[in-house]
């Protein structure tokens, strides 16, 4: 038995098998509970759960009304986590999100007291984040990366687990500010919420226009979620798989890519955070499948949501209507898994 690190679950080989099995069961229960409230969007739900387990954050792009708020609210409720929602508007200020020092007059005299903002929650829904100014958007940077908030000279730790699900409208819509690259890189995955199919729409109407639904049941506790997070970190990754991840991330860099389209259409490739997202996402995919190590297929499965917001197109790419998704798909199709 190896020495355990902080947050590391100390297990024997048999216990590992049991832990993986339990992980799978609990995750299925969580997805099932979310699926009981939310119709469709299975890919988005799965990726949100993966990000929760990986300790990352998610950016969801899509038109209003596709169940993004319901998703994150249901997930928080199913895990018995605190939830807050911030509606981003052009006049929203950083203090409105983070909190501010207020003068409190009590028996002890006048003093400043920090009034926590809505970001002090386990699950934060930053709704329509690209409607706020870049200044307010950037207020989330420290919180998302360091899981802490600094106001004045005081730093406040955010309660673990801390998870931000930000939604944004398509960039072409009125009144939107594009997210800065640094902010985009903080998100583990960028997801696209697609409109429901006809059958899903029928199901939505059946559920929402009839009798009131049951309340969301708690299927995981906060502590269990942290255990699952720790288990994810222990999943080993074979060197060939990791090598594939490294080569894939390098191939998004126009200076090093073997693909001509990347050289021509990409301004900036993925940062190392992209590789971290690939590995973590692949590990969770492996655990969801009951396996002990990720495969090449797991990496391929998470490649697009993990890299699409980290591959920034140049003018040529924008003018030609190239998408980051198409470039990543081409990279996946051309890059050999083992050189």
């Amino acid at each position, binding site marked *: 038995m190896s020495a355990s690190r902080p947050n590391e679950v100390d297990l024997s080989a*048999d216990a590992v098998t049991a832990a993986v099995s339990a992980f799978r069961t609990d995750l299925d229960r969580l997805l099932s509970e979310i699926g009981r409230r939310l119709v469709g969007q299975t890919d988005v739900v799965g990726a949100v759960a993966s990000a929760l387990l990986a300790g990352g954050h998610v950016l969801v792009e899509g038109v209003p009304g596709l169940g993004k708020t319901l998703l994150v609210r249901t997930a928080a409720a199913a895990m018995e986590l605190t939830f807050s929602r911030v509606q981003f508007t052009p006049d929203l200020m950083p203090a409105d999100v983070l909190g501010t020092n207020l003068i409190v007059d009590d028996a002890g005299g006048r003093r400043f007291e920090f009034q926590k903002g809505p970001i002090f929650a386990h699950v934060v829904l930053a709704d329509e984040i690209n409607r706020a100014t870049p200044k307010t958007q950037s207020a989330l940077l420290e919180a998302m990366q360091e899981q802490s908030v600094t106001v004045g000279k005081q730093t406040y730790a955010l309660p673990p687990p801390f998870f931000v699900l930000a939604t944004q409208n398509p960039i072409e819509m009125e009144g939107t500010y594009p997210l800065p690259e640094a902010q985009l890189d903080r998100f583990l995955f960028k997801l696209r919420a697609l409109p429901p199919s006809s059958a899903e729409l029928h199901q939505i109407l059946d559920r929402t226009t009839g009798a009131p639904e049951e309340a969301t049941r708690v299927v995981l506790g906060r502590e269990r979620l942290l255990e699952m997070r720790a288990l994810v970190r222990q999943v080993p990754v074979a060197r060939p798989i990791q090598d594939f991840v490294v080569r894939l991330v390098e191939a998004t860099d126009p200076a090093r890519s073997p693909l001509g389209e990347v050289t021509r259409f990409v301004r900036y490739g993925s940062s190392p955070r992209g590789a971290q997202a690939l590995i973590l996402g692949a590990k969770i995919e492996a655990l969801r499948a009951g396996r002990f190590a990720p495969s090449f297929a797991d990496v391929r499965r998470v490649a697009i949501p993990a890299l699409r917001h980290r591959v920034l197109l140049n003018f040529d790419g924008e003018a030609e209507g190239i998408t980051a998704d198409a470039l990543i798909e081409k990279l996946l199709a051309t890059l050999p898994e083992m050189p």
Partner: protein
Amino acid sequence: MATGGVLSVRLGQIRRRLRLQAALEGGVAGAALAMLALAVGVVLARGGGGAPRAELVATLILLGAAAGAIVRGARRIPLARCARVADAALDGQDRLLSALTLDTNDPSPFVRALVADAVRRAESLMPGAAVPARRPAGLPTLGIAALALTGAALFPASSRAARVGPTAPNVEHHAALPAGALDAEREVARAAAEAAARLGDARLAALAADFARALRRLASGTLSDPAALDLLRDLEARAAEAARAAKRDGQAAEAAARALEANAETRSAGKALAQTGAGAADDERASAALGASAATHPAETARALASAAANLAAAAGEDGATGDGADAKDRPRRLSRDESSAGTAPEKTARDAGDPEARHLEQLRRELDDAASACRAGDPGCRQRAEERGRDLAQLGRQGAARDSLQRLQRSAEQLRARVSRGELGDGDAQAMRSFGRAANGRAANGKEATPSGTNDVSASAEAAEGDRKGAGAGQSSRPGEAADGRGDDARESGSGAETAAASAAMAAEGDGTSQQESGSGNGIGHRPGGAPLGGRHGDAPGRRGTETDDDVPLPDGTGPGRAEVIGTAAGRGFASPGYARTFNDYAAAVEDALGATAVPEGKRYLVRRYFDLIRPRPPTRVPRSTR
């Protein structure tokens, strides 16, 4: 680890099967290569009269197969590849690969679980299932090679000598030309033949016959372009040489006639000589007049003959002296270059010594002197000699009269050669006639009305001459001045002119807008004013103004430029100029002000900023090649 050992054993079994399969494929590939090589060898051997033995062929094929099997079978097969093969046969989730690469001496609990899982799955996997027997990939190649070898062995081959047959000359012939394509040239040949018959000029007759023969061969398509060019160039040179000689003859005859006309006793003979050119009848008239003068006034006749001899010698010498200057333009460039240095007396003497025409004139001068001496001495043969010299001088005059026909023949051959070299033999006349039609109807190609009726030919001819002069002036074609002058002469002398001159005039009228503006690129011929220089090929770029440049945008075949390339090209040219940067900065400042105002919708601000970011000043860049 024991479990890891099990995994290695199973992967080793898979590796052996992979090696066997590789050896099999190598053997097939080696046999195929050997068969192909043998097929070539058999062909060569049979061509040389021998045939390899079947046992040897079979042995070589087997050797090739064995070599291929050894080479491919001996290649290193990493265990990771075996693991991938096994994983693919299981569920494709890389369990064995991960276990193989993560199995270390101090495995973590996760790795132990991973290896145990991998071993459990590997035990259920049969190596035959992981590497199933399959047909070697090189079998189709082997079949093709076998067919090639069989064909080489069975195909009836003849000896090398029998295979070498007469080879057809690799000459590209024209298709037969449309009727009327060479009418103008035929007319020139016919006129030359008539003039030769009238003047009794064998040299002109031979040239006219050769030209007519060349025209017939061109019209029937039996003459290739290179052969036609050589033939026409030779004809042109011969005609130019003959015209130069005719000019000298004519000048010598005129000078002798003037000397005879200056003497009252021989004036009638001189006048008769001056009118030569109408036919052989003039020869007898001049001969009789000079004979009569010699019979009645031998002393005066002797003086006149001596004066004629002196004038003839002076004219011949003058012509020789000016021949390198004024007449240089009459000669083809090749001759002009050869003679350009001929100016010193010894060189001139040496040249004249080899020139039959010069020798002929010298001989005539001597005979005139002899006749003068005979008459002066009261020799009874004075009359006979005078009559003979009269015939000689008349014949000299007739040879001089052939000069115009020879020059027309030379120009016609030159124009035809230019058309052949430009490849417009089939269409050139049709184009010229269309242009002629437009010019005749008073419509020039540039939209200007032609000169009112009655003067069209003259003005068009003048424009032709002008256009030719401009075109040839800097076009550095052959003999620019001559071409222009000559065509002008043709037009003036023949009124509406021969067809060639008229067509050329019409062409010049049609294209004067370009030929006059773009002077310097013409060819001096007039078929295509302002076109490629004489001898230019198809597709030669026309002359451009000095400020024009070509920009190549690299594009794949069949596609136009993409939006990025369009804007990128514009950026590469103009976005870097200081003027553009100044203008951009002015506008950008105003735009930033406007964006700060509430009047600009929030959602549009980003678009405006992005637009200005795209068109910001930047250094020129190469346009990327489209990959669409």
